[in-house]
């Protein structure tokens, strides 16, 4: 159970190996990787900058991870989120959830992403070709996605 916030890129395979090395209790590992897409509102994105709230960001990610561990029988988990300047194709976020069985791993990973998207203080600023950089608007779908998890003890309603 760990969180990491910083400018450095991550290697999914290396992170999974580090979490699962020498363990035989884990049967299922789900990873989610979010990457910078090359277009926004149909126009090419030339640059992206991620701002965060040092201290609170890490605390929120720890809370998200702890909440997931209370809801599902997780055996290992990790949240890594990058900050600073990024380019299209770059990794932004990595969430890993490991459990004995696959449903818990899938649900916990999805839960962590949904909560991170609405709770963790990160803000994206992106520039499209030929225009000044602008702050990305929050998406209503992200609130709705996080809201699903309030209705039941585990599992989203879809």
């Amino acid at each position: 159970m760990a969180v990491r916030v910083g400018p450095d890129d991550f290697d999914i395979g290396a992170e999974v190996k580090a979490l699962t090395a020498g363990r035989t209790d884990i049967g299922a590992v789900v990873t989610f990787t979010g990457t910078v897409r090359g277009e926004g509102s149909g126009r090419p994105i030339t640059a992206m900058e991620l701002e965060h709230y040092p201290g609170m960001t890490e605390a929120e990610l720890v809370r998200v991870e702890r909440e997931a561990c209370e809801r599902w029988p997780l055996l290992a988990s990790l949240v890594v989120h990058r900050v600073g300047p990024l380019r299209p194709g770059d990794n932004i976020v990595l969430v890993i959830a490991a459990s004995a069985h696959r449903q818990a791993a899938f649900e916990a990973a999805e839960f962590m992403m949904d909560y991170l998207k609405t709770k963790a203080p990160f803000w994206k600023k992106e520039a499209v070709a030929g225009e000044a950089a602008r702050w990305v608007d929050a998406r209503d779908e992200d609130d709705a996605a996080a809201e699903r998890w309030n209705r039941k003890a585990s599992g989203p309603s879809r």
Partner: protein
Amino acid sequence: MGAAPRTVKLMYFAWVRERVGTASEEVVLPAGVTTVADLKAWLAARGTGYEAAFVKPGVIRAAIDRRHVQETASIEGAGEIAFFPPVTGG
């Protein structure tokens, strides 16, 4: 309530920071400013940049000592209060 001045650290992020023109500042809270909503209203009256930042106060989220809080939350005893737009990480 004592008469001692209440000092608090304010922090601003993303476009709130850009409009206010600073990332953080120490302020002395006047009497009567007791909730997050009160504080937003008081800040909005401090000058052009603040007014532009807090023109739609309901859009701006707040955290007290690094925890999300609602509009109605009391700011008594707060050490650090942050204002920012809805988050867009992930």
